[in-house]
């Protein structure tokens, strides 16, 4: 016999329990459980809130999405809505008290079968489910609910009439269904509001694009456009000839990205520096001969797949543990040495002999009229120009003279690994305010250039060198006049003429050449 309660259940879309409806508690199948409703993460790093006002006092009936209370945190006033239909039995945090995120706000009594997996994520059973006492409470709850006048739809657009169980928007694991994908994106996908808005308009699911090219993996407008242009271009090739290419023939205005704009600003400032240039060619044939030898003795901890230990039958650690260097992360491992670490090492040797090139102009306030000073460092810090998908950076390797050629190679590998990530993985640790005193730009890796005229920026040291591409040439000065095939590389220096003289730079470069063209002397210097 279908009672009033059974009819109400039908209205709510739940299977009728009419046949089980009895006044005796033992036959009652739908159990009531007490759920603790926790303060969900409001976002923005907020960890606690003060409860300003409760909109319902126990025992108070609430329906899903009714306003439960208002909390305040920092400068934000937040309305918290009820996750489901139920009766608020107890307030756990009173008005004026502070609730921490994750703490219980109140206890709501609900039908057990109405708890789905999602609800369980932000609520938990408050106590072991009551049984025998349930019946009287249940009947009272049902009666009060049936007496409730049908509430007018709230300003929110959800269809309340069907009273469908919907995951609460506060639930961080809100499952995306067709409508929610287009309407409200999960908080896990980072994108500026404008980008979300645009994506929503175009019907693009941001989850497909994550992570994007912006900071912290934010999806930027370009990612959206690229995603759509990719699809569009395919369409246009298959469509008739009358279809236009997405690329218009008119001028297109493009904004400078953050790094490029940073380069712009730095370069404008570089106009303050009087540059002078000096170019020469270094003979790296000897380096070329050494390189394969060095490649065979790269220390195993730098190798991605180290060869088996040469010690088969005997163990150096038998008496005492042999020194084992700390494990090296994959980003620092390399399998082949290049010229650049050797250039850096030899440069640091020359810098050691030339304090001027270990100096930087002491930073001073704009408008400071005292005589400028140079700060000379005991170590050689060299910055390396890194061209990455996100832009041009100049990370610094500190104390190059304390590094071995191998550890320099590891460092360079690590920097290029960080730089190649989007967004850029370089941090102020790799790019400290106090940069190198000399910058090295290996532009020869990109193109077969011989010479360049690099530009110094304020704070970028006193000199910058651009390395061209090594090429085999016929050197007529060698081989007793008969000539010889030599490997040469063009190097172009620019220096700050406020502190460096032309002759000093030339002499410094000759000092460097002495190391580069005869690398064997490094053995004598035992580093």
């Amino acid at each position: 016999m279908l009672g009033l309660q059974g009819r109400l259940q039908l209205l709510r879309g739940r299977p009728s329990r009419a046949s089980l409806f009895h006044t005796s508690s033992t036959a009652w199948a739908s159990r009531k459980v007490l759920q603790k409703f926790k303060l969900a993460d409001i976002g923005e790093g907020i960890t606690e809130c003060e409860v300003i006002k409760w909109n319902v006092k126990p025992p108070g009936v609430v329906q899903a999405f009714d306003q439960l209370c208002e909390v305040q945190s920092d400068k934000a006033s937040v309305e918290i809505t009820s996750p489901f239909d139920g009766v608020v039995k107890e307030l756990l945090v009173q008005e004026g008290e502070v609730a921490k995120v994750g703490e219980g706000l109140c206890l709501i009594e609900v039908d057990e079968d109405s708890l789905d997996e999602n609800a369980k994520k932000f609520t938990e059973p408050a106590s072991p489910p009551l049984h025998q006492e349930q019946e009287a409470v249940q009947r009272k709850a049902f009666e009060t609910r049936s007496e409730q006048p049908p509430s007018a739809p709230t300003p929110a657009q959800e269809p309340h009439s069907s009273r469908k169980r919907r995951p609460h928007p506060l639930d961080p694991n809100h499952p995306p269904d067709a409508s929610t994908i287009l309407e409200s994106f999960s908080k896990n996908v980072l994108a500026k509001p404008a980008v979300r808005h645009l994506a929503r308009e175009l019907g693009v699911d941001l989850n497909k694009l994550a992570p994007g090219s912006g900071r912290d993996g934010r999806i930027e407008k370009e990612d959206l456009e690229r995603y759509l242009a990719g699809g569009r271009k395919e369409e246009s090739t298959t469509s008739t000839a009358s279809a236009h290419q997405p690329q218009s023939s008119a001028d297109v205005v493009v904004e400078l990205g953050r790094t490029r704009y940073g380069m712009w600003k730095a370069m404008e400032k570089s106009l303050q520096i009087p540059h002078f240039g000096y170019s020469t060619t270094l003979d790296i044939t000897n380096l070329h001969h050494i390189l394969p030898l060095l490649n065979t003795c790269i220390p195993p901890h730098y190798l991605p797949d180290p060869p088996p230990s040469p010690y088969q039958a005997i163990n150096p650690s038998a008496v005492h543990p042999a020194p084992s260097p700390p494990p090296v992360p994959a980003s620092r491992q390399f399998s082949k040495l290049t010229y650049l670490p050797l250039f850096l090492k030899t440069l640091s040797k020359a810098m050691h002999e030339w304090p001027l090139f270990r100096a930087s102009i002491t930073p001073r306030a704009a408008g400071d009229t005292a005589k400028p000073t140079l700060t000379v460092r005991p170590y050689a810090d060299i910055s390396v120009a890194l061209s990455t998908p996100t832009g041009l950076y100049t990370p610094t390797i500190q104390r190059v003279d304390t590094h071995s050629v191998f550890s320099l190679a590891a460092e360079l590998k690590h920097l290029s690994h960080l730089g190649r990530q989007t967004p850029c993985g370089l941090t102020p640790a790799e790019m400290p305010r106090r940069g190198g005193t000399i910058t090295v730009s290996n532009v020869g890796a990109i193109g077969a250039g011989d010479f360049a005229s690099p530009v110094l920026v304020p704070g970028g040291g006193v000199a910058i060198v651009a390395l061209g591409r090594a090429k085999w040439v016929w050197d007529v000065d060698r081989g007793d006049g008969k000539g010889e095939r030599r490997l040469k590389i063009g190097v172009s220096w620019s220096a700050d003429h406020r502190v460096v003289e032309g002759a000093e730079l030339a002499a410094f470069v000759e000092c460097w050449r002495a190391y580069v063209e005869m690398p064997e002397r490094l053995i004598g210097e035992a580093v």
Partner: protein
Amino acid sequence: MLRSFPPLPRPRVRLALHKYSTSSTCNQLSPQHAIYVSNSVNPYFNLSLEDWLFRHKNHQEPLLLLYRNTPCVVIGRNQNPWKEVNMSALKARNIPFIRRRSGGGTVYHDLGNTNYSIHLPRASFDRHETAELVRRAISTLGIDVRVNDRNDICVGSEKIRVPGPMCVPAANECFRLYVSGSAYKIVHQRAYHHGTMLISTRLDTLGALLRADKDTMVTKGVDSVRSPVCNLRQFSSTINHETFVDAVIKEFRKEYDIRETVQYVDNGEGVDDIEYIRNGMTELLSWDWAFGQTPEFTYTLKKTLPWGTVTAEIRSKHGVILSAAFAGEGDVSQETLEQLGRRLEGQKYGFVDADIVRDITEQDNRYRDIWDFLSSSMDTYSYRP
């Protein structure tokens, strides 16, 4: 901006989807536009308009509202007006204070201050992004402002630093003066960030009104974070309400790709009859909202009078005196003091009718002195427009 595809049609105002119950719909203001500029300077109207737009606009679409008010002090949702505002200064200048619906601290509005309000879907709301929008708008007017880590906008001389080559910009350096304060409201599926912008405000009035000197009042609510302020006009002679409004609208259009025309809101037909707004204005004026939302506080007073000293500790919650404990040293009856205290229980703080304690105060000069001291300490000002 690089666009390589035609924009999809944007849903226009849906006349069929009214959220408010009125009969005449033809010339009534719709809450579904994207950019609103209020030509009204009535603070009660503007705050209610903001709330109406907040609750009725399609919650997936961004909305911008700009407005300015005649002189008034606006306190945060959960603040103590007696602690935050100098009531006697308010009274002297006949300026109201209004409790707004968003959180945060106390600010002073006048016609030299422009308020912006950005409404967004809750899921994509980001305080920093909205603050950055305003910052960009101001920078197009030629003023270099920064957003600090509390998302306030500040300006002033920066700490000297020499930038490295193409290095990551350092965190905000020392900008010392504030030009804007922000507050937020977050509901089920919508959130807004609104803030002030000091363009040419009377800073002397601001200082006088926001200094209450009630150090012995300890309140449970939110205390304002006091910061030194300055006007943007100091940094540019071309900035005013109109140029600021235009700059923010332009930046908002760019950020959210809005092409719609600006809706100017004037008091009058089609606006004043919106019931939600009318009710909102009435609520803002009511004692229940203005004073009755004050969180619990305790006020400790001490006064030395010719005949002795009296200390009082008044506890109040929701604007009502819970208890008033008096203690007297000197020639005064403790019993009468207790009687006085009991008489005050349940009375509205600051609005205690002198008649309630007349029989006690008329007993003796001493009690009248105590009462005078008490009522002047509980000074309040209720604005009647």
